[in-house]
């Protein structure tokens, strides 16, 4: 498989130069790899990374441009060629008909941001946005995605600018371990469109009235995000982050949320 290559900006080169001077040459020439990442994690746990956190987060949020390596045809019993868009770039990939969208993203396209939590549609960690709607990539066959447009966590930031939902999750600590976070954020981004379109939830009042844009209460956010489980229990922070992204105004966390 080709090595992941990442073009770094001058700011990012400076960031890595500050943090990992002895690694800089390797990073600039070969891109960021797992060894560098683990070292960064070590620096983060030592507190050295804190002041550079936003810059590093931006780098990790960027899509990695990896070439698709075709599987040898002989290895595929029921091959399906799928043409679809992933984070606005066109992809053509030959897959086994059994491949889920999640496995195709992670194993074939190198987009490992979408996480495999339960692999049975119960946790939401694999949530991605297909043709504007949030879906579970673990229960979606990649073969059914012909002609569709998929957005993953890697496709939310624009260049070095985080999506407002990503920034709000950072600001409000909308995570602990972070495993559910890509799914939470993709889910929350799609939720903003659903609210704008006036979609109802089980707890929405006045569902018989004409549909209009809804400003979501904390209860509405909780109900509508119930498909994304956070084992660390960062729910009050997640709700606050979504509320802030929704209103564009600073939001204080509601500690009485669970009561």
């Amino acid at each position, binding site marked *: 498989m080709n090595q992941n290559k990442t073009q770094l900006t001058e700011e990012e080169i400076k960031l890595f130069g500050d943090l990992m001077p002895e690694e800089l040459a390797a990073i600039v020439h070969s891109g960021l790899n797992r060894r560098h990442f683990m070292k960064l994690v070590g620096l983060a746990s030592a507190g050295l990374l804190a002041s550079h956190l936003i810059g590093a987060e931006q780098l990790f949020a960027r899509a990695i441009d990896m070439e698709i390596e075709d599987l040898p045809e002989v290895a595929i019993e029921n091959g399906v060629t799928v043409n679809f868009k992933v984070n606005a770039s066109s992809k053509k990939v030959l897959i086994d008909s059994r491949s889920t969208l999640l496995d195709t993203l992670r194993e074939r396209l190198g987009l490992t941001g979408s996480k495999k939590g339960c692999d049975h549609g119960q946790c939401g960690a694999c*949530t991605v946005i297909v043709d504007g709607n949030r879906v579970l990539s673990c229960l979606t066959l990649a073969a059914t995605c012909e002609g569709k447009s998929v957005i993953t966590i890697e496709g939310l930031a624009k260049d070095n600018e985080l999506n407002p939902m990503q920034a709000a999750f950072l600001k409000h600590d909308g995570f602990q371990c972070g495993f559910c976070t890509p799914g939470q954020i993709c889910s929350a981004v799609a939720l903003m469109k659903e609210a704008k379109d006036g979609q109802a*939830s089980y707890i929405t009042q006045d569902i018989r009235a004409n549909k209009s844009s809804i400003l979501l209460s904390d209860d509405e956010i*909780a109900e509508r995000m*119930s498909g994304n489980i956070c084992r660390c229990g960062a729910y009050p922070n997640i709700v606050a982050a979504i509320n802030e992204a929704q209103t564009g105004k600073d939001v204080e966390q509601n500690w009485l949320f669970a009561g």
Partner: protein
Amino acid sequence: MRPFKYTSTNSTSDATNLLVKNPNAHFLAGGTNLIDLMKEDVERPDELIDLTRLDLTSVSAITTGLNNGGVTIGAVGKNTDAANHQLIRQNFPLLTKAILAGASAQIRNMATNGGNLLQRTRCSYFYDTAMPCNKRSPGTGCAAKEGINRMHAIFGWSEDCVAVYPSDMAIALSALDANVKVMQADGKIRSIPIQDFHRLPGNHPEKDNNLNRGDLITSIEIPKNKFAAHSAYVKVRDRNSYAFALVSVAAGLELDGNKIVSAHISMGGVAHKPWRALKSEAFLKGKAATTANFKAAAEAEMVDAKTLSHNKFKVDLGKNTIVSALEIALRGTDSKA
């Protein structure tokens, strides 16, 4: 997951022809249940025929015939779109509520209306291929009957199967007296009343419904009713959201002042099919809409419940849920729970 051939078609006749040709082929719609069951090795098709590109997605008003004033819902349309269609929110809010009580936003964006009716039970013994299950492997026995059966049936079960049917949407469709339109393998269309669509387990729990091989659901039709302003869907579950029902109740009250002209009540989480509470309905017909009458109506239905070792709680829960649903319906569809 076992290997399978994947085919997609935009022709209903091609879809049924392909299915009939291969006894191990299976239709695929949203996949939210089927793909999971294939991962668990419960379903083992060797061919999937993807229906999601069929032109069967629209929701539209019925303007002629017996069901004039009703609505028809395309089988391949998504649950989210059906729940949020203005016509359904306005005239059939009970259906909107029930759909939105089920699953999560992600799953409702994937799941289709026809597929929702064909959900298989979530009985854990059905999912566990190491255990006996007459529904999964006829003749092997029922592990749930003497096993952990807290989630299981209290009405209509048999010695062979005590599983419950999991859909919320279908419980509302039952109270709304919907009809399921089906294209047969020979191309003819037939209409199945929702009460006759699903089965009780009897000696053949492997059959969830009365569809024949090659039948393709094309739409669901709901007739006009007079209780849009007085309906409720109440779902009781182990957590507040994103869980299957312990008990759910869909209720609609057609009122003349405070007098009940007709009551329409169906229960979920209690049987192998949507359980129409006919005894409650008969009790309420012509009576005053009072809490005392609601309680007596709930009692009339639940007196026939036959509980298993772990689900005796469903009797009182069922009564209370019927009463709650009727009280919300009486106050008005958009009133607070």
